[in-house]
């Protein structure tokens, strides 16, 4: 059993996946939310296909963002309550790597399912055909950014009661560039333009998040431990 920096990542990734699997019902709730809320949109707006098609890209993205926001609160919550967070802080590995493992597990159980289910929602909301592939690509990258940024917020609020509400407030402004470029990718494609440039920017946001968010989250967790 090695103790290089890498093994921190895989070990915590596998652990969190196993924990999510044990609580399958809870882990699936963001997905259920995502699908259920999509029925609210035609109820709230209109059942007309043409009008739904205009808003489909944006609405799917907004719902994916909200679903991720709801789920990111639980990233560190149970570890904080049973003392595993204490152990995480004193592992010999550098903290950002186990955190990256946890965040990856979070994305695999939240962002990825959302991405895979989005074509179904596209169908229900009359998303034009040219929008499906860009939707999947932008959601895949975008939800990863959301998980990473959300982890920073979760780290800063984990020891607070009712931290979930505050977490949403903190993280919302940071989510806005992601949704701007995510939606733009899909609308560019629908309008017949090249949708790779906004996707590339989304990719850049992802790269920056992967590099910086684990560090910020590690700093946030160390503060919380002193509380």
């Amino acid at each position, binding site marked *: 059993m090695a103790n290089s920096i890498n093994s921190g990542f895989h070990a915590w990734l596998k652990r969190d996946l196993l924990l999510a699997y044990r609580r399958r019902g809870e882990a699936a709730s963001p997905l259920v939310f995502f699908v259920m809320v999509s029925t609210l949109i035609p109820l709230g707006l209109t059942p007309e296909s043409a009008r739904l098609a205009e808003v489909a890209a944006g609405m799917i993205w907004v719902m994916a963002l909200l679903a991720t926001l709801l789920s990111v609160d639980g990233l560190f919550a149970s570890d904080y309550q049973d003392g595993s967070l204490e152990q995480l802080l004193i592992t010999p590995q550098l903290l950002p790597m186990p955190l990256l493992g946890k965040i990856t597990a979070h994305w695999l159980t939240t962002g990825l399912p959302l991405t895979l289910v989005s074509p179904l929602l596209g169908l229900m909301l009359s998303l034009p055909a040219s929008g499906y592939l860009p939707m999947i690509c932008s959601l895949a990258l975008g939800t990863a950014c959301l998980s990473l940024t959300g982890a920073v917020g979760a780290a*800063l*609020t984990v020891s607070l009661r009712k931290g979930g509400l505050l977490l949403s*407030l903190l993280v919302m*402004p940071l989510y*806005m*560039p992601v949704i*701007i470029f995510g939606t733009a990718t899909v609308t560019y494609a629908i309008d017949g333009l090249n949708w790779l440039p906004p996707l590339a920017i989304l990719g850049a946001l992802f790269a920056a998040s992967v590099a*910086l968010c684990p560090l910020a989250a590690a700093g946030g967790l160390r503060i919380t431990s*002193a509380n």
Partner: protein
Amino acid sequence: MSWQWFHRLGSPRWFYHNSARWLAWLCPIAAAVVLGGLVWGLAIAPEDAKQGNSFRIIYLHVPASFLALAGYYIMAIAGAVGLIWKMKLSYMVMKSAAPIGAALTFIALFSGAIWGKPTWGTYWVWDARITSMLILLFLYLGVMALQYAYHSIDAASKAGAILGLVGTVNIPIIYKSVDWWFTLHQPATIKFTSAPSMHPDMFQPLLVMIVGFYLFYAVALILHTRSEILRRERKTSWVRELLNEKNQDVADKKVGKS
């Protein structure tokens, strides 16, 4: 060990005593510049060809926006200094800067809305700058709420500092994204003050107001930091002496002594 504590405690006390002297000359200068700029801009500068007199609100709106953004950076830098050098005074400055910046952001948004009604016929429009200002307000509120939520002052300060830094990295990204988003959807009819083509007679009072607002910000920040110092250091002996003196003065006045 006691040297370290002394060093840290000496810092807020030094600031408190010296800032009283700074305010003595800073306040009048700030008041003079702001009043002078207001009179110049509101009364003396010529009317705008298209907007008439309603453009004059820029003398409030533009400086407020400048300071709102600059204030966030000041807050974030204060937080960073506190994190790196573990200076309590720096954390106090950071905490004091947040509500001032949030208020200025709100003033910018509000004055922008007032400007909007006569100019474009509507109070609110999702243009790039206003949307970015709104997001900046949320960032400020987030930092304030996070610090308020923690009972431990140390944890609150560090968490606020980290959040401030995260926001700082994000602000250029947010501004650029929103700008890009807006040009994507820009309705053809609305064009905004790209302002470089402003007549010098209107531009000069604007500069004066901007400088005046910076001075005002400095005064507000110093005053707020002073009260934050008193609140956090209330159990130290120098603060107790200070308050006792003040109480004694008040008591003396009540009894009728000079």
